[in-house]
Every structure is written in C-alpha cells, then in structure tokens.
C-alpha cells in the first residue's frame, strides 16, 4: 500500500475520488487499494482466487446441488447439502423432546424473548421497570414451559430441550453471574479479612477447575449436600454450576475495572461526604463496569458457548439434540449439515452480543 496516501477507503466519503468521472473512480480506487505495488497485486490476486474458490464451492453445496425436498436417498445421490434433513429434523434440534403439539409454547416464548431483547437495547430504557419485565418474563418462561399452572398439558422439566434450554442456561447464567461477580470482586477488594479471604478462595478454587468437573459435581455430588427432602432437577443444578463458574471469571473482570479507577475519584467523592456504598454505586462502579464492557461480553460469549458442555451430563441442549438427530437410522450421515446448523445458531447469538458490546462502548465513551 502506498503508505499514508489512502486515508478513506470508502469511495462515497472521499471527495477526491468523487470529483472523478464515474468509472474512473473505481479504477483509481482499485489501483490505490489493491494493485499499488507488485506485492499488493500478487496478494490481491491470491486472496481473490481463494475467496472465489470458497464462495463457488459454498454456492454449489448450499444452493445449486443442495437437496431441499426429498428423502435421505435423494440426498445421498446428490453432491450438495441435505437441507431436507434439516427441515425434517429442525423441530427436534430446536426443541428436543418437547411434545410436538405444544411446541407453540417455546416458540411464543422465543418471540417474546427476542422482543424483550430488542426493547432492552436502548440504554435510556435501563431502569427498574425493565428489570421487573425481565423477572416477569423468566417467571412466564417457567410457567409456560411447564404448563400445569395455567391448565395446559404439563411438560416436565426433563422434557425441555434444544434452543430454549440453551438460552435458558445462558440467560440465567449471565443474569445471575454478573451481579454475583460484581459482589465477589468487591469482596476481594474489601478491607475485611474474612470477606476478602472467602472471596479469594471462592474465585481461585472455581477458576482452578474445568467447567466439566463442576458439571459432574453438580450432577453427582450436589444432591448429597442438599437438605433431605429437597430435590433439584439436574438441569437446575447444572444451571447453578454454570452461574458459579462464570461468576468467578466475572469477578476478575470487574476487579480489573475497579483497579482502573484512579484513587482521586474515591478521594473526591469522600471529600464531598459520600459514604462508601454511595461512592461505589454512584461514582466507582458505573465507571469500572464501563471500562470492562469488552472483557465482560467476552466472558458472556464464553458462557453462552460453554452451555453446550451440559451434554456430558445428558441434558438435551442444542448441541445434544443436533447430535441425537444424527442417530435416526433413516437419516444417517448428515452430520455436516446438523453441526453447521447449530454452529450458525450459536454464531448468530454470539456475534450479536459482540456487535452490541461494540455499540455500547461507542455510546458510553462519549460521556
């Protein structure tokens, strides 16, 4: 690249290029950006060639040669993707063993969920009412999924599966591990030795073990510690394991934020007469949490994908249902399609989180 020559890559924002005749603009742009030197030219051509090969392959696999309607036999004869398999298995992959005739319930809840997320995106709407909305939604989720409280056919927790289960693990995981992580971070910074010690022990021992071992413990050991007569379904125990695990990571992220706040902020707030709780609430935490938006969302994305580990204690999350769908003797051998499908779902959620975090950072850097 001609160093320092090209400032704006977008033609529509470059007055110099806009002054040129229509076709000439593209000519100049290409010359500046892709073919400035022999090495540039070589690299550009190589990359364009690779991109071309990849897209043409995908195009063929996904569209031209794909089988959209038909049987497994049709699929096997064709070269492309077996979309027919996905169409056939989508309800199972998405909702697991949830009874077919009641699938409208998780579907409806999912729509609500998306609406609620869309509503929560704007920062001006973050207030107590929004928190209440979310709690109400969670209650609604359990009531509707189960059904027996409102006179619908009961669907026990052991039949929940697929996307609702994955989303539940992720949303509750994020919703609870965030405040818990903040509390732990504050505990770790506390001057009270007992509180500080306990926080450090908790954080370090949880971070020192893999999530899988926590999930095993939750499924095998936790029942032993529960008081007699109390039983907690495996799913809820796994949920707790995920919350505990993630909160330890969250605590370290928040601690980083707390340490980034200069001592002068504390001093100024103390000199004004604010007490410690108010300083945290009004001055330090708002700034600290803002500093760590990117690593926070990074932790959330990790958590979202880690929910797929519950497969090892035989919970029917999205990953499990995808895997189980491959076992149908009529439709053997379409694992690429199944895994691509769930990968796409995971990607959509994680990428949205990532994009949203960048937006938040941008908005908040203003003030």
């Amino acid at each position, binding site marked *: 690249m001609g160093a320092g020559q090209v400032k704006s890559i977008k033609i529509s924002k470059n007055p110099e290029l806009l002054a040129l005749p229509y076709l000439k603009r593209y000519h100049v742009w290409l010359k500046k950006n892709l073919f400035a030197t022999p090495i540039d030219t070589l690299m550009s051509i190589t990359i364009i060639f690779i991109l071309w090969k990849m897209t043409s392959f995908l195009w063929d696999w996904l569209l031209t040669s794909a089988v959209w309607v038909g049987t497994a036999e049709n699929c096997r004869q064709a070269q492309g993707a077996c979309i027919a398999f996905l169409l056939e298995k989508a309800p199972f992959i998405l909702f697991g063993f949830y009874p077919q005739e009641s699938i409208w319930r998780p579907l409806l809840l999912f729509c609500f969920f998306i609406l609620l997320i869309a509503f929560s995106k704007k920062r001006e709407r973050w207030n107590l009412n929004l928190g209440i909305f979310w709690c109400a939604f969670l209650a609604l989720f359990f009531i509707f999924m189960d059904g027996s409280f409102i006179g619908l056919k009961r669907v026990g927790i052991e039949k929940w599966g697929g996307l609702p289960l994955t989303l539940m693990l992720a949303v509750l995981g994020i919703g609870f591990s965030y405040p818990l992580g903040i509390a732990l971070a504050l505990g770790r910074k506390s001057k009270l030795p007992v509180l500080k010690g306990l926080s450090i022990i908790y954080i370090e021992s949880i971070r020192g073990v893999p999530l899988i071992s926590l999930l095993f413990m939750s499924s095998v050991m936790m029942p032993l510690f529960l008081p007699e007569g109390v039983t907690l379904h495996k799913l809820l125990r796994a949920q707790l394991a995920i919350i505990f695990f993630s909160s330890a990571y969250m605590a370290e992220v928040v601690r980083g934020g707390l340490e980034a706040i200069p001592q002068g902020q504390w001093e100024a707030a103390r*000199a004004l007469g604010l007490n410690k709780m108010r300083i945290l609430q009004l001055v330090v935490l708002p700034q600290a949490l803002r500093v760590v938006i990117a690593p926070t969302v990074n932790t959330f994305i990790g958590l979202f994908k880690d929910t797929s580990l519950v497969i090892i204690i035989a919970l029917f999350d999205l990953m499990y249902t995808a895997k189980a769908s491959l076992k149908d003797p009529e439709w053997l051998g379409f694992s690429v399609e199944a895994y691509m499908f769930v990968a796409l779902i995971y990607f959509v959620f994680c990428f949205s989180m990532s994009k949203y975090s960048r937006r938040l950072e941008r908005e908040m850097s203003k003030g």
Partner: protein
Amino acid sequence: MTTPIIEISEMHKWFDDFHVLKDINLKIDKGEKIVICGPSGSGKSTLVRCLNNLEKYQSGKIIVNGHLLGKRGQNVELIRKEVGMVFQNFNLFPHKNILDNLTLAPIWVRNMPKKEAEERAMEYLSLVKIDDQTYKFPAQLSGGQQQRVAIARALCMQPKIMLFDEPTSALDPEMVKEVLDVMEDLAAKGMTMLVVSHEMGFAKQIADKVLFMDEGRILESAVPELFFKCPKHARTKEFLAQVLH
C-alpha cells in the same frame, strides 16, 4: 475572643516509619485565608488532607468547626459536610455531566430535592463563569474550566471551610489566572480558605497568613508583608529565593 474554626494542636502523623508531620500547631479563625508553601515532600498536602480525614493522624488533636476529628475518623461525616476540597487533578466524575457532578453530593448527602440542587448548581456555575457548559462532560472542558467546575462542585455543599491542594499546579500557565480569579472572588466573599500553593503573587494578594513548611514542620508563619520581606528562617529565605525570581 472567638473560637477558631480549625484548631490543630500537637499533631503528628507517620506513614509507617516515616514521620511526615511533626508537632503541628495551627489555629485558623473564621474567614481567615491561609496559604501554605514549602518544598515538595514537606508535608503540606498531607496536612491539608488530614483536615477532612483523607489521611489519618496518629497523635495530637484536630478540631474542625467545633467537632473533634477522631484518630479513627470519628465525626468525619459531620466534618466533611462543612469542609470542601479542591484537588490538583480536579477529580471530576468523568461519567457525569457538569450539572450532575455538582448535584451529586447535595442530592445524596444532604438529601436535597433534585430541582433545588440543580438551581443551586446553576448559581455556583455562574459564579465560576461556566454556566454555558452545563450539559458537557468533564473531558470536553479545558483544565482551567475543569478546576473551576471542581470549585463549584465543592461550593454546592455550602461548606464553611475550603481546602485547596495545589489547585493550579496541573494547569497550563494561561489557565492559572482564571482559577485564581475565582479563588480571589471566593476570598472576597469571606470564605475560610486553606490553600497549598506556589503562587506567591496570589499569596501576597489574598492571604492573611503565609505558612512555610519543611520536613514536616511549620517553620514560619507570618502575614504576607513580613513573610516575603524579612523571613526569619534561613530555609525560608532559600526557598523564597528559588520561587521568586
């Protein structure tokens, strides 16, 4: 004989083994303006920070506005309500706009209704001549403007005493005057002020008393005319020779 608003007697402070403040005795009357100068590391900032308990002291006595400030910070809430402080690095809250910076403490410490707090904030902003920047954020203001906001923020709590810890040291030279002007206005209104500063011109103009500190002791304390014309102590002469060229 009125009782002094600040009374420090036989006060000592250590940072671990290091004896920062040695046998400090100081009485300040209501409305008095004191300027403290001295070489860096002489303990002048520490002394000022002891008065609102940003630093603790180990022996002696500090009485502020009639309240004994305990060595473990007893009465600190009472005292901080009456003592405003301005820092070298302004320490405005960067995530809040100017108006919110000013109303924060009145609302949360004095439980003042928001509207009233905002009205008062606007008064003080016009006093420091920044009432046109109300909704900006601190980072959008110049250093001098930020320091004036910091003064207004402290004034919003309607303190009886104002502490200034090197308020102009972090400023570009052309901004020093606008801050000193505000401080002069404040002095003229009868505020009790304790200012750590190297601005000797300012000291000459507004101070009732100038203190010179070195190695944790108050070596000299005099009205400005005497202090600058015939300093008693050799160390003071040396220091003045360096700062007044």
